[in-house]
């Protein structure tokens, strides 16, 4: 009888508890998701033929009605941007799918666990809250080491502004430290860091990504994506050593492309260095990705072609 009572008590205790937590939800809300950081390309651009950066070496010889090469460049760069985002966020996927291992009023810890992909390492994820700001770290250590051996592969913070993942945040991948710790970094070995800064609390939203090459021998490569009301998108990035025009030098260009959900878009290319430093090239394309307007600031005889009125209104992105 005593055993039965004990068994009933154990059964009752096991039947109690759960993961019903508002705080858990707030902690999870501080972690970015792909939809927050990824470039949302227009659906109309899917499968559209177009050039890439490599074809740019043929110069800016584009005629009205032809496929816009700038549009193609934007799509390609957007997909690469999203690939980097996906790679970074995949490190956080396991966190979303499991409850915290320990809960304190302003701290959550998942783990430590054995890292299945890296058998010699333990992994844990630590989140801390101070008022509306959340800091988080994905930490590793060699199996068997003490608490002071944890080092962070990924670090981030988020300043919440209510709403679903609305706020300002940043996260970074410390590839250099990982390399020093002999942690396998795969295809990231060419980098020291990958940084993402973002703000999602108000339109236009902004996501900025910077790739810092290994040894910091060159300037970081930066990409910025913004999104305004009406699902208008914008990407800005720089392209070094492009042969835009006939001449002795290659050009470094800054490319800003904007697009609407229906597939129309506009590209503005500014030459930062090269044969025509300071020149500006503007191109608009229709829903089919065909050029409807173009303007070359360096061409005195034929500076514009097509109808400027065919360009979509992107003033919402001028803020």
């Amino acid at each position: 009888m005593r055993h039965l009572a004990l068994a009933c008590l154990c059964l009752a205790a096991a039947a109690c508890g759960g993961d019903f937590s508002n705080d858990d939800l707030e902690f999870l809300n501080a972690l970015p998701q792909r939809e927050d950081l990824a470039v949302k390309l227009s659906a109309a651009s899917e499968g559209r033929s177009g050039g890439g950066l490599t074809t740019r070496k043929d110069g800016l010889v584009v005629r009205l009605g032809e496929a816009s090469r700038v549009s193609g460049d934007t799509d390609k760069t957007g997909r690469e941007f999203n690939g980097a985002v996906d790679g970074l966020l995949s490190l956080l996927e396991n966190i979303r799918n499991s409850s915290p291992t320990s809960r304190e009023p302003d701290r959550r810890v998942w783990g430590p666990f054995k890292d299945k992909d890296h058998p010699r390492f333990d992994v844990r994820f630590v989140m801390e809250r101070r008022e509306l700001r959340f800091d988080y770290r994905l930490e590793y250590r060699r199996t068997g080491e003490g608490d002071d051996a944890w080092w962070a592969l990924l670090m981030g913070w988020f300043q919440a502004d209510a709403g679903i993942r609305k706020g300002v945040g940043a996260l970074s991948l410390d590839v250099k430290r990982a390399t020093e710790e002999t942690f396998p970094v795969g295809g990231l070995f060419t980098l020291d860091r990958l940084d993402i800064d973002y703000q999602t609390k108000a339109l236009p939203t902004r996501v900025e990504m910077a790739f810092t090459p290994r040894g910091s021998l060159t300037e970081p490569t930066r990409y910025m994506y913004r999104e305004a009301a009406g699902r208008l998108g914008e990407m800005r990035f720089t392209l070094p050593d492009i042969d835009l025009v006939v001449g002795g030098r290659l050009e470094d260009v800054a490319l800003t492309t904007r697009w609407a959900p229906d597939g129309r878009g506009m590209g503005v290319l500014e030459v930062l260095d090269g044969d025509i430093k300071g020149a500006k090239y503007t191109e608009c394309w229709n829903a089919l990705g065909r050029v409807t307007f173009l303007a070359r600031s360096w061409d005195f005889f034929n500076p514009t072609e097509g109808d400027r009125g065919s360009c979509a209104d992107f003033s919402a992105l001028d803020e």
Partner: protein
Amino acid sequence: MTPLASSFRALAVALVLVASVAHADTLRRFALVAGNDEGGSGTRPLRFAREDARKMHALLLRLGGVAPGDAKLLLDEESRDFLAALAELEARAREAQARGERTALLVYYSGHAKDGSLRLGDSRLPFEDLKRRLSGAPADIRIAIFDSCRSGALTRTKGARRAPAFEIESGAARDARGLVILTSSAADEDSQESDALRGSYFSHHLASGLLGDADRSGDGRVTLFEAYSHAYARTVADTAASTAGAQHPTFSYDLAGNGDLVLTDLRASGEGLLVPGAAPPGTYYFVDPGGMVVAELDKAADVERRVALAPGTYRVKRRLPDRLRIGEVQVQRGRAAVLEEARLRDAPFSDDPVKGVARDGGAWWTLGFSGTVQSFFDAPTRDTLFLSVGLLGVEAQLHDYFREDWVWGVDAAVGGKQAVLALPTLAGPGYRYSVASLGTTLTSEWPKGSLAPFVGARMAYLMMRRDFQDEAFPDQKFAMFSPGLVAGVRWNPLPRLHVTGRARAHFFQYTVDEQRSLGYWELGALVTYQP
């Protein structure tokens, strides 16, 4: 008493009855019928007193020669109403006497009696006052029938005799005048009710006798003495094995002259059921569609019997040692149906058409549906964590099993609602909040008439969950045992229907984000049926 003496007395009674028949038709009858389930402080409400009064009132109108205008039915009225109604009937009787009519006044009361008084709700009517009043009532014959606890005190002071040991002066030829008092129990006995009969034993057998079972003479008329002796014998027999002990009705009379009084004329309405002499002997039960035994008939071999059933459909049951014989019979208005043995069929005891199988004074159970509103006391908790919701559920209750007036119940309920999360750093995710509750409750009731206030304790097992529409947020759940208190009132508007209103207060320990002692309340209604 020798068998010969007994037979002689029966013959004497029969002769008296024959003598009285001639007068029955000219007797103006007045009836005051009162039933009250309530007896005020110190008494437990009765369940069937009003129903007994209703049945008796209907029977007297249909078979007892009482005109509707000369009958008063009082249900749950107090003593002043009782006396006022009695005064009105007395006035009418006085007028009838002034016109030269012979008069009879019948007073029937079913309800509480205690400490030398009838207890009509919170009011009291002392036995002595009532007896004095009835003794002086302006009617040639006054018959008082009291179906109440310890009512034998009404007859104790005046030669109460236990039937069938009463005697009639057979030598007198003139009509009886005076007072007759019948009580359902002796001065030191309780009058018992039966769930199976859905009435008191005494009133049931009195009514059954008046419908024909008591008509030993077979003349189609049931006299006061026939009815009483029948009710006496059957009440004693039925209660002998009860936990309260045998209940002995009493009878007293203060008659000048002689003669019995015909209480019911089985042919008065023309309708009824004829059980032919050829029908097998035995005890027949006549059961209405609700499963209630309306009348019984103890039939001897080769004797035709008549039961003055009201128009309707009845199931007939006769019990054999190894089986039942059951069938159905239709009684039409103004016509006498004949029970044909050939239309009865054999049936196992499990097919007994009589319902109400609960042991008298024993346990009974109910089953029903509930509606509840649940809300946590702490405002932030009920706004953002465990929301206020409505619950629908089922509940089963076992009454009087562990102890009289204790109720043990088990319940299950579910509820939920759509909601939008609103936290300091997170607002907007839509989700469905759901609650499932399993509980067991033990309460103690204090029945007061059709109402029974109660308090008790409850242990619940609550399971909450929320399912978010946004897949970015995981579905969450929490479960915990929750002790609490419950209080409320159960109302019994119909014999088998109970409506309960109740409030609960529960303790609830939350353990996820932190250890927090919470509490919630529930307000609910429960409708249960007693099978």
